[in-house]
């Protein structure tokens, strides 16, 4: 059984007991434990079920490479699936549940898949479940989906918050083991700004566990002094619990800091997402031990050798009483020695190598541990827990020589450098035959904006596998990083006692000649249930590229992203194809290194502020009136102001009727307002608008259209000439920023010698449309300027005061009523708006929203950008030819409009429509034409662009585009409905209301 040892444990505090629960069972651990350590201390080796066959799964590793031990944690709004127990710090009250089983972890009916495993090889689903056709969606897929999926889906909105931060440095060191600290010491001493990230809560990495001796003392002591030294450097920042997740172009690094994972609910953000810009990135990310492929290597109790050592040394937890060590290298002997020193039994070390030399085996032998050279594990015995191993000759086919009883197996297949961060931006790898691993190819690094190497790998991550080599390599790398960012660095490495290790020997299958039955029990990917036989099947079937095999078998696609399985799988594939591993290549590494919480990626941009919110000066008033708001870009505008008991439709109709008979007020502040000024401003506007603006007299207004270079209508609005050199261009609400950018684009990039200045003053002004027969009465009551027809006729503007407010008044109308649009400084907007309401009460003032605005403009036959236009409509289509100058040699869009298709007389053109029965044409409807096209689609001859119930005319009115346009007046056409029917309508003039303009020109 696995248990807590009575002594030792460098990371635990025996005086601080922590209570937690697993599947409802109350358990105790110690402060400093990982959840994995605490579970093992309670003999909870079985922690989950695998993805496909639902096989029992135990803890395999001690770090982020753990494929099996994923649990659901917390509850309600703090429930989180797929938490890795090996990287979860224990805290009081932690609640964990195992995953992917029903009804219970110990008894899971899904394990039936395991008995059928033979019939469910890699890629089996591509070959079956095809008949009958409907069965995939209704039968097979639901079953597969339900049995896959691992953790439960959270149900609630996240109770935690997340922070995001930026950081900048010359040298970013990722990894706080001895190599990372050494690199940081060298870079820090040079004066470079250094940030060091460590994913766990502790500095030092593996060295203290491995018993390395640095500068003549145990590694722990050196780590402590190194961290102290770095802490004293003002130019160095140290961050624990921060995982370097991804390296992106131009030195951009994403890192996730786990702030409150171990103190949930304490008010701090759960995570902080760091976006770091680094001059150079030093990856000191260590290496990951590989499993060995022998039959039954997935039975709970089979663990990585170094991880076994981690549990013993760091947490005083023994994974088993009797642990068999199986290896192809010397490093695993450290585990045997550590176990023995902890007073545990090591019945045998099974070493696949025929010749076993080196310092560590000698020590093991001296401790009386039995070493079996040239041997292999034929098979692990046990179901939910290891009970023993059967031993055979590595060179043979698996004939059992002997069985050894044990309750744990510590395996080591060698070490693979963590090259993920090196590879994210295209760093290449080279195959190192000595260690049988890929390591960074320093001649093909990822490059930055200057084409220079951007990442420097050091230590284990660079294939420097001993402590002494790693320190030397890291000092060199740290110095190189500092020098590359223009600092003078001195390569000074701490010295470590060199332990002589015999070479490892690559062992990809154990035993070498294992047959099909054994290979079908050798697991490569524990979580996704991919076996040696699956990879061989993929190769046999022609899925020869790594990417094919990976996708066909799902090898390495699980939540550990193949940290344990990639190299072993690749080796099996290479063997199957009779090729060398480097020829077969490696898969692409994608960020993140370990999974990053989505909430952290979204940061504080949630709820109301998930995007910037733009408010007009009257926004608060609208909200106080319970206006129904609609998003217009980042603005929110009142759609309507419903009164108690009114539907939106009713309130919109009331607003229209009141405006047409009394007085309506519209908050038009969002309307774009751009100043264009300068000696060449007139010339510029003549290029920008389809009409002529240069000859607009000062004091007057003119309606204008803007097109893009393709000739399509992009925006419209009223332009006012302010003085000899100044024009004010109104744009649509959504168009202000876009049009201003458009102006700047042309002025800066094409006509840069023209003397024109532009300013977007949209937010400097509040603007109110005072609309209706009583509009003038209200303004006259406020007093201060002459707003009579004679002094301020239609399409003119004037500056003055109204009710003491400094105003600019435009006589323009988008409703067909007597109308003044009045601009005041934004700071006075709310006061002015309220003053209008107060003074206007006697004239029947009501606010109206965007929907009433739309209806009134449609009644009047005015086009709306975004309704009548959609990016494919030219002004000519909308009968706006009058607004296009025939005299101008050029304007933006003119050449585009000359192309065949745009100049064609067959284009659909604007007309009005009245349904025969008075109903409203459905929004989006098309006008049907006879017959079908070559693709069998019903022919069309037009479509509706705006359709409303007109409260004024008390019937449905519509505008739309139709082949023939106004020539079709009088025709009866049919609009389609989604249910297949049609609505008959008569083509009419699009001006439904006050055709002669009698109401607005008063």
């Amino acid at each position: 059984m696995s248990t807590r040892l009575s002594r030792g444990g460098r990371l635990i505090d025996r005086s601080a007991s922590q209570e937690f629960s697993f599947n409802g069972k109350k358990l105790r651990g110690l402060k400093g434990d990982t959840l994995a350590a605490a579970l093992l201390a309670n003999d909870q080796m079985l922690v989950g079920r695998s993805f496909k066959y639902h096989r029992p799964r135990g803890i395999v590793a001690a770090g982020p490479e753990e494929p099996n031990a994923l649990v659901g944690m917390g509850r309600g709004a703090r429930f989180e699936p797929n938490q890795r127990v090996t990287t979860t710090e224990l805290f009081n009250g932690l609640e964990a549940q195992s995953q992917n089983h029903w009804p219970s972890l110990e008894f899971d009916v899904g394990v039936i898949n395991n008995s059928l495993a033979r019939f469910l090889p890699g890629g089996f689903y591509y070959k079956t479940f095809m008949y009958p056709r409907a069965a995939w969606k209704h039968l097979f897929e639901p079953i597969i989906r339900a049995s896959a999926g691992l953790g439960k889906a959270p149900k609630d909105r996240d109770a935690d918050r997340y922070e995001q931060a930026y950081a900048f440095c010359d040298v970013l060191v990722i990894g706080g083991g001895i190599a990372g600290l050494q690199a940081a010491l060298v870079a820090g001493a040079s004066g470079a700004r250094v940030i060091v990230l460590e994913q766990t809560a502790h500095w030092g990495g593996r060295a203290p566990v491995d018993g390395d001796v640095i500068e003549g003392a145990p590694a722990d002591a050196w780590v402590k002094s190194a961290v102290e030294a770095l802490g004293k450097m003002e130019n160095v920042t140290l961050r624990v619990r921060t995982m370097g997740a991804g390296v992106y172009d131009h030195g951009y690094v994403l890192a996730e800091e786990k702030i409150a994972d171990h103190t949930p609910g304490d008010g701090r953000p759960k995570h902080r997402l760091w976006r770091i810009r680094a001059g150079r990135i030093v990856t000191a990310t260590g290496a990951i031990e590989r499993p060995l492929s022998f039959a039954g290597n997935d039975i709970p109790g089979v663990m990585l050798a170094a991880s076994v050592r981690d549990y013993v040394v760091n947490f005083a937890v023994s994974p088993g009483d009797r642990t068999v060590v199986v290896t192809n290298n010397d490093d695993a002997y450290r585990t045997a020695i550590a176990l023995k020193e902890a007073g545990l039994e090591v019945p045998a070390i099974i070493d696949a190598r025929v010749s076993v030399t080196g310092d560590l085996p000698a020590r093991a032998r001296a401790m009386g541990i039995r070493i079996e050279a040239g041997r292999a594990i034929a098979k692990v015995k046990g179901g939910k827990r290891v009970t023993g191993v059967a031993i055979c000759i590595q060179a043979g086919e698996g004939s059992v020589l002997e069985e050894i009883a044990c309750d744990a197996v510590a395996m080591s297949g060698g070490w693979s450098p963590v090259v993920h961060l090196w590879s994210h931006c295209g760093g290449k790898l080279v195959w190192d035959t000595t260690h049988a691993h890929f390591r960074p190819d320093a001649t093909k690094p990822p490059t930055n904006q200057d084409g220079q190497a951007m990442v420097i790998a050091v230590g284990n991550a660079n294939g420097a596998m001993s402590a002494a080599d790693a320190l030397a390599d890291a000092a060199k790398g740290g110095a190189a990083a500092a020098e590359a960012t223009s600092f003078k660095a001195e390569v000074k490495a701490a010295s470590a006692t060199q332990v002589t290790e015999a070479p490892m020997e690559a062992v990809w299958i154990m035993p070498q000649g294992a047959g099909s039955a054994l290979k079908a029990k050798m697991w490569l990917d524990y979580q996704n249930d991919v076996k040696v036989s699956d990879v061989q099947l993929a190769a046999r079937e022609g899925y020869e590229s790594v990417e094919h095999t990976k996708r066909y078998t799902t090898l390495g696609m699980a939540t550990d992203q193949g940290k344990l399985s990639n190299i072993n799988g690749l080796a099996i594939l290479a063997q199957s194809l009779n090729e060398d591993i480097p020829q077969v290549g490696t898969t692409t590494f994608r960020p993140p290194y370990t999974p990053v919480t989505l909430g952290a990626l979204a940061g504080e941009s949630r709820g109301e502020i998930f995007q910037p919110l733009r408010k007009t000066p009257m926004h608060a008033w609208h909200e106080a009136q319970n206006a129904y708001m609609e998003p217009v870009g980042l603005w929110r505008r009142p759609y309507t102001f419903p009164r108690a008991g009114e539907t939106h439709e009713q309130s919109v109709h009331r607003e229209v009727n009141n405006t047409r008979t009394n007085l309506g007020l519209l908050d038009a502040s969002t309307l774009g307002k751009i100043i264009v000024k300068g000696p060449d401003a007139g010339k510029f506007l003549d290029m920008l608008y389809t009409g002529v603006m240069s000859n607009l007299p000062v004091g007057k207004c003119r309606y204008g259209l803007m097109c893009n270079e393709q000739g399509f209508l992009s925006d419209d609005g009223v332009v006012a000439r302010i003085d000899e050199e100044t024009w004010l261009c109104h744009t649509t609400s959504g168009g202000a920023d876009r049009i201003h950018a458009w102006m700047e684009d042309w002025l800066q990039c094409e006509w840069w010698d023209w003397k024109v200045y532009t300013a977007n003053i949209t937010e400097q002004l509040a603007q109110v449309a005072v609309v209706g027969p009583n509009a003038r009465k209200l303004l006259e009551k406020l007093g201060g300027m002459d707003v009579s027809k004679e002094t301020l006729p239609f399409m003119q503007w004037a500056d003055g005061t109204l009710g003491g407010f400094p105003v600019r008044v435009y006589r323009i109308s988008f409703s067909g009523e007597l109308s003044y649009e009045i601009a005041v400084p934004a700071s006075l907007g709310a006061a002015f708006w309220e003053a209008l309401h107060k003074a206007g009460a006697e004239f029947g003032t009501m606010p109206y929203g965007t929907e009433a605005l739309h209806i009134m403009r449609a009644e009047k036959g005015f086009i709306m950008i975004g309704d009548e236009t959609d990016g494919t409509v030219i002004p000519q289509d909308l009968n706006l030819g009058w607004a296009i100058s025939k005299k101008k040699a050029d304007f933006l869009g003119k050449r585009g409009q000359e192309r065949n298709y745009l100049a064609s007389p067959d284009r659909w053109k604007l007309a009005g429509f009245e349904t025969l029965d008075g109903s409203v044409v459905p929004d989006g409807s098309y006008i049907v034409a006879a017959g079908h096209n070559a693709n069998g689609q019903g022919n069309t001859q037009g479509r509706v662009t705006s359709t409303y119930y007109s409260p004024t005319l008390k019937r449905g009115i519509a505008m739309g585009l139709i082949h023939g346009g106004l020539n079709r007046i009088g025709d009866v056409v049919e609009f389609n409905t989604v249910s297949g029917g049609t609505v008959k309508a008569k083509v009419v003039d699009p001006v439904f209301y006050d055709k002669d303009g009698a109401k607005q020109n008063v």
Partner: protein
Amino acid sequence: MLILECPYCGVKAEETELSPGYEAHLKRFGPGSSDTEFEDYMFARKNPKGVHFERWRHVYGCGKWFLAARCTATLEVFGTYPAQSAEPPADLQAKIKAKRPDWKGYK
């Protein structure tokens, strides 16, 4: 995540401060041009896998448009220069040529 130095304000601007504007040094064809000239102006793009001259605006900075020479295969930035340039500066062209001997020139 690109960094481009704005030639106006000297800021090494990060991509989120910038707004991209695709190929640079396009010649505008207006009324009087042929259909082919106009089509090329609107649509024909070099789209090289390699050295590309392109427009950027320092939109959340000084607001100025500028031009950049950048490799679309490695994202290396050779240099930036003002938008008011009829062609890439000679020294920039020489620098690119030195780094990419196979480069056929900006035209």
